[in-house]
């Protein structure tokens, strides 16, 4: 049994956003972290490994430095990594990205008892589209927003986190699950595993490795092939200091309406 976890390296939210001339983000110029929801997916897979002894494979699409992130995930307990990296894949939107990742997951192989994990969404794009699209392309049943996961044989019982409550679902493997960061507390790297993580297998899937996969259509990958194009990326200007008004009396309301009127908002 395998748990395949799709992970994205994202800009550190405490840093500044760097933008390239074509409007996409200049990832190489920004400090990076592992996407929070994806770390929850890794932890969910590692907990499954603790219980069942399954193999955990971490998969990421990104520039070559993303290997560093995969090594860190191996130091947390993953068994091996796959880095999908090629110039041809650069600038892909969610449609193109999910196509490429689905092809990579297909190449790794999804067997009867396997589970594919994805984080709900990445903090940079915030689309929450890639996980579900991978499931569609692989023909797997999918459960999104998992806040609790229980596995019994080839059946998973999942608590979905919804805006106004929870939904309990049961799904058969193989399937795809997207996780939210509330699911768990990701473990730390282990010093013993840090010693081993650079010797564990890490395959690079480049364009050559994936181009003949049936799920790949060379015309719909990369920046050129993506149906959506980023018009502009920018750091929003900082908002001004917040002014607090105390009180619930008429005077306070008058003060508020006065301020709003001064700014021509009312």
């Amino acid at each position: 049994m395998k748990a395949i976890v799709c992970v994205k390296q994202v800009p550190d939210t405490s840093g500044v956003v760097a933008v390239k001339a074509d409007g996409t983000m200049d990832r190489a110029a920004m400090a990076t972290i592992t996407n929070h929801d994806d770390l929850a997916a890794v932890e969910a897979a590692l907990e499954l490994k603790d219980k069942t002894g399954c193999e955990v494979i971490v998969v990421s699409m990104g520039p070559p430095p993303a290997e560093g992130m995969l090594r860190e995930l191996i130091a947390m307990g993953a068994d091996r990594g796959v880095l999908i990296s090629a110039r041809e894949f650069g600038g892909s939107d969610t449609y193109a990205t999910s196509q490429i990742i689905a092809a990579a997951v297909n190449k790794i192989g999804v067997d009867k008892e396997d589970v594919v994990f994805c984080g709900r969404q990445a903090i940079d794009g915030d689309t929450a589209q890639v996980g579900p699209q991978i499931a569609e392309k692989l023909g797997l049943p999918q459960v999104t927003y998992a806040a609790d996961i229980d596995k019994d044989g080839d059946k998973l019982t999942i608590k979905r986190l919804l805006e106004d409550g929870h939904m309990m679902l049961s799904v058969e493997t193989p399937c795809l699950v997207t996780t939210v960061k509330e699911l768990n507390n990701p473990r730390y790297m282990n010093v013993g595993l840090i010693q081993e993580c650079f010797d564990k297998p890490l395959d690079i899937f480049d364009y050559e490795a994936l181009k003949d996969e049936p799920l790949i259509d060379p015309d719909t990958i990369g920046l050129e092939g993506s149906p959506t194009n980023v018009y502009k990326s920018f750091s929003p200007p900082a908002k001004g200091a917040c002014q607090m008004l105390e009180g619930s009396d008429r005077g306070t309301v008058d003060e508020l309406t006065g301020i709003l009127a001064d700014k021509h908002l009312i």
Partner: protein
Amino acid sequence: MNFQLTREQELTKKMVEKFCEEVVAPVADDMDVEHEFPVDIVKQMGELGMMGIMWPKEYGGAGGDYIQYCEVIERLTAAHAAVGTVVAAHTSLCTGPIYYYGTEEQKQEWMVPLAKGERLGAFGLTEADAGSDSGATQTTAVDMGDHWLINGSKIFITNAGYADTFVITAMTDKKLGTRGGISFFIIDKDDPGFSTGAEEDKLGIRCSSTRELIFEDCKIPKDRLVGKVGQGFKIAMGTLEKARIGVAAQGVGVAQGAFEITKEYMGQRKQFGKTINKFQYPAFTMAELYTRIEAARLLVMRAADLADKGMPCGTESAMAKFYASEIAMDMATKGVQFHGGYGFINDYSIQRYFRDAKIMEIYEGTSEIQKLIVSGAILR
């Protein structure tokens, strides 16, 4: 010469920084007030391979090196000195001699659970009348044919209240004294005739456990002797030689932690219309202190590198220890000073660093003993 950390050392640093930020630092002040031994943190560190960093995997360790060990000790201490103390005493002082001097059977039985963090370790050398003069040991071990009989006591033993395994020195032949008269033994917390005294109430590192070890006709099996009869003093000194690298890393940690807190405070505190880090005297003082912290860290890394290469490091670890503990004390003192009146109030963390710094100049060989070692080596 290479000042670059390896990939493994970089990741270890990243891991311990995150662990300290999320787990250790947030509880440090409260635990210090309560004198609470960090039971849960120690358990978690064991699971993360932090209780046997530089020991080989076949003996339960993480398979890392002394540099990684020092990175971990420094950061733990920067967050909460007592936690650094617990790990250092456990790793270097207790597990160390079993690894370097124990038999294969002793390593399997005693070292593996220590290195995995399943059991906690302590080291007993100091006695009421044998401090710096550790050769003046009064505790005795008598060969009774089928067992050893131990009588006496050890004082100021770190981890004593929570340790499962102890290593101690005891006099086996008073006539021979230091050279050949002292032997080294492993004690289990449940050995008959063995007990620990009350917790000491200390100035600093108040979350660490410090107690007396009491041996009253304590009977231990013959296979608890480490090394040969009479090698105890040599084993203890060899153990301290490497363990000092860890204490030196603690010194750097106290200094670094005090520096970070003070830097933050100086960036917020305004007097005469500007933050106090904009005044030249405190700014230059911080520059000097920071340079000395970095110099101390390099001394620590130099000693750690020698230990990793299996080379003698006695002089280097002694220099690292007295220099690092001195900067710990100086940084903490200046830290309190730059906090002004707030530095004297227990609501501010800097006072904890001030109290914790002092022990660095005392335990595992006082600064004076370190200078004795260094002068002995350089003035021969």
